[in-house]
């Protein structure tokens, strides 16, 4: 890759620049900041779309009363039941059980507090969906 070939397609990194290695005119390697590459945007976009679709699906399920908000927040933090269980110190099978809204509704405040801490939200937030579909 030559310096002139370093992709500067789009401002993809929210104003940040990434370092790329490229050859200058004398054939020596130099570090060149890159502002983004289209190919990268496409592959990463696919992963993001996937995640957003999953999130939207879970949101629908929660609104329909088939899943608990816990499931939504877990997906929002891109976690799996295993990671969430380890972070909150709760066994995985219990985490999965707590995805059922009727069981989640009866959780003790201590358990809710552990989930809230693990997911970096407040206990009140954890019990209902956020107003906007997506918010970190």
């Amino acid at each position, binding site marked *: 890759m030559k310096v002139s070939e370093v992709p500067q397609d789009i401002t993809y990194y929210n104003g940040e620049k990434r*370092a790329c290695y490229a050859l200058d005119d004398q054939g020596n390697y130099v*570090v060149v900041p890159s502002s983004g590459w289209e*190919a990268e945007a496409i592959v990463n976009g696919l992963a*993001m779309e996937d995640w957003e679709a999953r999130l939207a699906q879970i949101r629908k399920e929660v609104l329909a009363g088939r899943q608990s908000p816990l499931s939504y927040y877990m997906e929002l933090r*891109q976690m799996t039941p295993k990671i969430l269980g380890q972070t909150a110190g709760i066994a995985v099978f219990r985490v999965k059980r707590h995805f059922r809204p009727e069981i989640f509704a009866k959780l003790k405040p201590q358990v809710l507090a552990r989930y809230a801490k693990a997911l970096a939200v407040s206990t009140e937030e954890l019990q209902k969906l956020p107003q906007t579909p997506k918010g970190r």
Partner: protein
Amino acid sequence: MTTELTCAGKPFNHLHASHCESGVTASLFQDKGVDLSEAMAFGIGSGIFFGHLPFIKMVGLPVTTYRSRPGTLFSKVAKRLGGKFVTKKYYNFPWKTDRTKEGMDDLRALLDSGNIVGLTTNIYWLSYFPDRFRFQFNGHNIIVLREVKDGFRVADPVLDHPVDCLTEDLERARFARGPLESKGYMYYAKSVNPKPNFRKACIDAIRDSCNMMLRTPFPFVGLMGMRYLARQIIKSPTALGVREARRRLANVVRMQEEVGTGGAGFRFMYAAFLQEAAALFGSDELAGLSKEMTSIGDIWRQFAVVSARVIKERGSGEETFAKAGGLVLICAGREEQFFRDLDSVAGKLKA
């Protein structure tokens, strides 16, 4: 290059690197007065690698890696250049389950005593990153310079300037759980050999890399792994359905270009290392191999472009998967020849 003050009031030159671990390693050595570039750190740490591991899944997709296991690069550089580093991990015990406070207190004490400290963190909780880079990955390395109000001044080599990180974020990032969890891993230099033997380190590192790529008796890593990935890509649309095949291919390219690789899955960075090594030894053969690595990197880039087209063109073209897989096969063939040549060249070099 941005200059920043550390806790001890010493100036610290922020290094804009393309990869976190080699960047942090190079920065720590530079801070101790050893002239070590990022590419050199990457080469001496034997960072170049390939692996496609279908049995380890991240976000439900098989892991593809273009670099050695996180953590090994740093320890290999430290060993080969004779740097004494103090490392610390906070394991959980049944009688001691949350060690976050202990870990943060130790960090503050180290900063107060004038050290800059390297940390391994989870990238999701580092909120100074743009959202689309944040995902649950427990192997991002950063350097902490000093404590500021409500947080820490952090030199993240992937960004081109130092940033502030909230204490709360850093706590979560250091002690995040999940695969490859870092357990608050931190490291700082105790003493560094001011005149390391670069020539010997380079030879050791090159031979180590050749061994890993050519002679690992395990079908998912090295060149065998590359050919395995090529076969998987070629048969993926029929075996998995086009939609799933697209997701998997996207993930491969994502690991190659997205996660701080300097382009083409570290191949350009390794070429830069070989160029520096060629100057060090005055070897034309190494310079030639650096050029060869650059052209292999260009094929990897082409693979990324072809894959991006395959992914974008919804619903059409099974032969393009074959084309993408074919490019990986070409890379495998060229890299096999490359590493064989490199191995024989390294055998002739004198330390």
